């Protein structure tokens, strides 16, 4: 575990999280928040920011104590670290964005069991130095936020005719042509949109093998 002898390409570590190893589109991790909070862009973005905070903080802490970890107690340490930062994030959301906290419901506390975070702690932060871990955390969380926002934009547009509550399509309610699809803001819309997006991305990636920057989950 100790010693970072191998040179790790920081740029590639960063971009891996955003595209090649995008946690949602490529690794299919963290599906619960992906399906649950993407009815519109605002909660999706809030969720993305919370995950960013938790992921970077937990990567920092895990990376700093990687040489002290006892192998059989490591999962316990990861969970402890993650749970602490998630609870802090949850309290901040409740204090400064009460409306959003209500909308997200239990999904902010549920970041504790988000497998992206424990996955990165295990696959990257516990094996690499601080700089690599932070870069990896940043890349992964940008990738996650980006995926959530894309999914949420599609769903919000079709469900309400607006993106980020900014009207784009002329809805029937206001004399326009577009009839909002209420189903898109329900779970069924999440499954259909995610399925189609994954299919689309798989088509573009079919003949390419990805090169991981950080020694990842492959």
């Amino acid at each position, binding site marked *: 575990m100790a010693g970072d002898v191998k040179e790790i390409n920081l740029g590639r570590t960063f971009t891996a999280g955003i595209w090649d190893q995008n946690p949602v589109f490529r690794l299919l991790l963290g599906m619960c928040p992906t399906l649950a909070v993407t*009815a519109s862009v605002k909660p999706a973005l809030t969720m993305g920011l919370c995950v960013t905070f938790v992921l970077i903080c937990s990567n920092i802490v895990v990376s700093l*104590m990687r040489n*002290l*970890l*006892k192998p059989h*107690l490591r999962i*316990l*340490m990861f969970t*402890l*670290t993650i*749970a*602490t930062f998630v*609870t*802090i994030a949850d*309290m*901040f959301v*409740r*204090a*400064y964005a*009460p409306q959003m906290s*209500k909308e997200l*419901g239990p999904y902010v506390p549920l970041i504790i069991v988000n497998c992206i975070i424990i996955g990165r702690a295990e696959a990257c932060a516990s094996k690499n130095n601080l700089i690599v871990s932070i870069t990896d955390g940043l890349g992964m969380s940008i990738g996650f936020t980006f995926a959530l926002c894309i999914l949420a934009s599609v769903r919000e547009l079709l*469900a309400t005719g607006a993106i980020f509550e900014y009207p784009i399509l002329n809805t029937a309610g206001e004399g326009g042509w577009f009839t*909002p699809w*209420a189903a898109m*803001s*329900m779970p069924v819309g999440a499954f259909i949109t995610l399925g189609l997006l994954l299919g689309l991305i798989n088509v573009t990636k079919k003949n390419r093998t990805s090169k991981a920057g950080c020694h990842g989950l492959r």
Partner: protein
Amino acid sequence: MRRVKHFIEQSWLLIAAAFCCGLLLALTNAALKPKIQKNEIGEMYDKMKGLMPQADKFEKVIPQAEIAGNITDVYEAKDDKQQAVGFAFVGTGSGFADKIKLVIAVDKDCNKLLGFEVLFSNETPGFGSRITEDWFRQQFVGAPTGTLELVKSGRADKEKDQILALTGATVSSTAVVNIFNNHIGELKKLLKEKGLIK
């Protein structure tokens, strides 16, 4: 002794980390708790103010601890001349997918409803979620505080306690009407007991 040493060797990091994390959480909690509580109370006040715009001050007249039934704290609203405007409380009932919590306001004699605001609901988007829409909520404003009746078609007669249901959301509409029917009678009784109304 060797066992203790082994135990400490294996777990000192975990013990230390648990202490640090606990401390960090306690500090954050101490710093943010007042703000979180203020938010929760603030929302209730905003909704009551929306239902009774002329009210200036809200006073808890019957705390929940004194109430046997399922009504929460009852607030009395007074305007700037200390005249009573009405009463408000939170009523809860089962909706389609989750609990529905309503802030319900009645006038100062508890004869007419001043309407409701949704404090919490998780109804189906596009159907049950329309209980928050103005036209549905307006039906309750000015209705008498007797038993309300839900009608599904035609024209609802407000004077006769009728509420027109939302199309495609019978369960949610019924839930809202039931919250009123389950709580208003109890509220009247409580207010009478306390001598707040005649």
